[in-house]
């Protein structure tokens, strides 16, 4: 099976601090990988490297067949990254936020498509309300709706279960199943071990910026 992500000795340093030291990782297409570890072990840094937001200080990182830093545009076309803090504009409504995301990613989405995506995330009733008044959980659901606007080959989820109620957590699980069934690779970084590992083919534990162990 071809790999969506292949990392060999990937290292990233911020000033004098080493966030990742020689990380090796292999994520096949269509696989779900749970990325576990305490705070500051490098989970988010690894996701940011894979998403092309960061460049490795050293090592080789191949994503969707492209060895970074080459192929950044092709990688971003097939990849989506749900950051822990989210990405939503306060003054725009739910529909407008999704419309902006669709335009930026070159996705041909009609108004009905956007409303369907919001309804699928249980946000149909808030579609025309500014995000300013939304709860953190609603914003998380908006992120989920944004990710489901276009077909993806690689999905990176950073703490996707935080702030979500039981139904919201169920939506994330449904989405992960959907992406996996469609052949996309999914990497979930989370402290909620039970949720993160529910669909996982591999469990990768990071400690001190290194891979401590990999459980199949």
């Amino acid at each position: 099976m071809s790999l969506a992500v292949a990392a060999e000795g990937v290292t990233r340093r911020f000033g004098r601090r080493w966030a990742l030291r020689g990380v090796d990782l292999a994520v096949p297409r269509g696989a779900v990988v749970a990325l576990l570890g305490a705070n500051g072990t490098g989970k988010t840094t690894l996701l940011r490297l894979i998403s092309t937001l960061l460049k490795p200080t050293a090592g080789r990182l191949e994503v969707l067949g492209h060895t970074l830093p080459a192929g950044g545009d092709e990688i971003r076309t097939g990849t989506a990254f749900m950051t822990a803090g989210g990405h939503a504009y306060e003054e725009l409504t739910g529909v407008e936020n999704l419309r902006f995301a669709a335009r930026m990613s070159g996705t041909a989405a009609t108004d009905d498509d956007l409303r369907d995506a919001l309804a699928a995330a249980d946000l149909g009733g808030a579609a025309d309300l500014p995000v300013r008044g939304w709860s953190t959980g609603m914003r998380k659901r908006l992120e989920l709706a944004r990710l489901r606007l276009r077909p993806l080959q690689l999905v990176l989820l950073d703490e996707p279960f935080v702030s979500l109620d039981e139904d919201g957590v169920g939506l994330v699980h449904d989405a992960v199943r959907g992406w996996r069934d469609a052949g996309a690779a999914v990497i979930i970084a989370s402290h909620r071990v039970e949720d993160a590992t529910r669909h996982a083919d591999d469990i990768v534990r990071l400690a001190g910026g290194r891979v401590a162990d990999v459980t199949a």
Partner: protein
Amino acid sequence: MSDLPRRAAAILWKDILSETRTRQGFTAMLSFAALVLFMFSFAIGVDNDLLGRLAGGLLWVAIVFTGTLSLGRTFQNEELAGGTRLLRLYPGDVRAIYLGKLAGNLVVLAALEVVLFPAAAILYQVDFTAQAGPLLLVAVLGTFGFSVIGTFFSALTVHLRARELLLPLLLFPALVPVVLGSVGATEAFLAGDPLGRAGGWLRLLASYDVILFVVCLWVFPVVLEE
């Protein structure tokens, strides 16, 4: 629509929509601009001849001061939304971010000038209408140069702690040719351009605008890297 203009237009649409929903920023800018114009008027006193001769310079200083406030907010809404760098997660040329933000600044500054020019005409008792065409050209070139470099430095300083201080510190020296050209051309046209100096100022402005635009557009992707 091809990729770059489409994505730049998406950013412009989003920023204009956000601005029209709050209007706080623009209202504050207008109030500040009015205050600056009044302060100059009070400082110079009731000498209408002197006010008229200095009108071009006073007007452009008011535009630069007020515009700097607007430039400081260019990327702040992105930070509130999760981070400017997250825009890099979308596929396509990151220069679209610069072009979209630049277009937004041009719209805001143009709206500001629509109010500032008549206000300055009344306060300083000068007639801009006699040379409306040439003065419009000066306004376009001056505003473009100001926005080009201001948008760039706004992106450069958005992640710095002392950005409110650093933005003008970096911006003002780089703006010297834009301010010189704009003030020189405005004053020359207001005086009827008896010495034929306006053309030289316009050439300086246009050349500097082109050089700035090319350099800023070329370097911008590096600014967003971590």
